[in-house]
């Protein structure tokens, strides 16, 4: 198959493409899921980011 005689090699070739397709399908199915608008979460994130910026400044 595909000019590759060893099944364990062509299956890796096909599986690597299949895994990428799995990622695409997962990304599309969940494209709009997981958005966080909760006020408390945004406040927590803001605290985290301000601390992160301080660390980056130090670098």
């Amino acid at each position: 198959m595909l000019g590759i005689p060893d099944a364990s090699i062509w299956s890796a070739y096909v599986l690597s493409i299949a895994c990428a397709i799995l990622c695409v399908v997962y990304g599309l199915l969940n494209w709009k899921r997981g958005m966080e608008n909760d006020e408390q979460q945004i406040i927590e994130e803001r605290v985290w980011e301000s601390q992160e910026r301080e660390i980056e400044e130090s670098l």
Partner: protein
Amino acid sequence: MLITILVTLVYLFIVAYLGYVGFRQTKSSKDYLVAGRQVHPLVMALSYGGTFISTSAIVGFGGAAGTLGMGLLWLTVLNIFFGIFIAFVVFGKRTRKMGHNLDAHTFPELLGLRFNSKFLQGFAGVIIFLFMPIYTAAVIKGGTDFIESYFQIPYDVALFFFVIIVALYVWMGGLKGVMYTDAFQASIMFIGMVVLLIFTYVQLGGIVSAHQQLTDMFGDENVRQQTGKLIAGGFQGWTSMPVAGSPIWWNLVTTIVLGVGIGVLAQPQLVVRFMTVKSNMELNRAVLSGGIFILAMTGIAFVVGALTNVFFYKSAGKIAFVAAGANDSIIPVYIKTFIPPWFGTVFLLTLLAAAMSTISSQFHTMGTAAGRDIYEKALGQKGNSLFITRSGVLVGVLLSAVLALLAKRLDVSMAIIATGTALFFGLCASSFLPAYLGALYCKNMPKAAALWGMICGFITGAFWIFFIHEKESSSLQLVKALTGKTSLVKDTSFARLAMVDPLLIALPVSVVVTLLVWITYVMLKKSDMDVNHIERCFKGV
């Protein structure tokens, strides 16, 4: 040459400009959180890819595919499935939420705060600070090998220029992880690799024809003579897996495929990326482009790496390893010899982009490991942490450069870049993976279980690297200085163990110790974690 230098300078200017614009945007924005939410998901996802993939993957592992064949594609499968899908879906979302709950900013800090242990944070920081330079050196060597071959200049000179460019990038603010810069670099990498694949397949008459030529090559008597040593080690051609249980099989399957494929789950510089995203939505979307990006990077590097044999053999009657002179030189010499000069310049930029986006995150991780994890948190010191952090970066730069210089003196047949990368990835998985998984999913896991699992995993892994696994122990020389042998088990009835990668021994040890301590705590009805603290960790997870 002049055009190449000019194009490189233009590229560096664009990188610096994007860094400056991105930095100003976040600085001037009153609410950078909202500003961040408006960034296009593709920009966000590409910036991940830039951190994931380095010159190590393209030059080092591409070269390994040139020698060992397309069996490396199993690493692409693992890279996409574990490195993207499992990492983002299973680890990423919980890491992000728990990191925010605990206000953790580094991987050791996440583990340290989760298990309420400064020692754990410091210990993880020391492991990272001591061993990450090996991985960074592998990335630097990947870029240097290309510059050496492409410009036909000595390795030492190429290394000097490459480190200068990287240092300039770091000095210009490359450590600030500006998303647009990373995304720009990832775009260049993507275009460069896709063009490389198309060119290679077209030149060989298409996908099936190219693979068939590579398969047929191995039947040639002359090729069999050139691959005599490899055949003795279990090699069966570039489109076949090595003989199961042979030295090459152990190297390919345990070190390259499993070591890096599983090790990616506990990479400190990647774990931190999960915490910087705004919501789980970005993680979901990043899975999409991340999967395609990793396929385009590692998949192409491994396929093209193997196919270089057809080009070299048709033109010079030599297999890739013999024609290029070293495993890590296969991709650079292929680009130099068979690819149009204009693409050589594009590929140089591809490698610069791949190196800089990864190296910047490595220096970031080494600096924070020294300043925040070890000095500030584990040692409880205050005042000079800024100095220590910056010194940590400087020491990291110098140590990595020295290691990259020394790496040139190693045996050229041993896939130095791939081995160095696999060493760090494997050590991270052995030390951190059980504790990391337990931290995210097991509320009742005791601190002692995480700590002892990490300590035993690290000690076993380091012992195996320095004293047993011959591929590494023979280069590190410590066992030779002490015993005169390249591995403790050499010439004994356990000699086969010298082929087994440290990950295969150290990770199970780490898992077993973690479970044993945990079971002991359950049987004794002991607990070393505060219930309120656990609730805080898992709030909203």
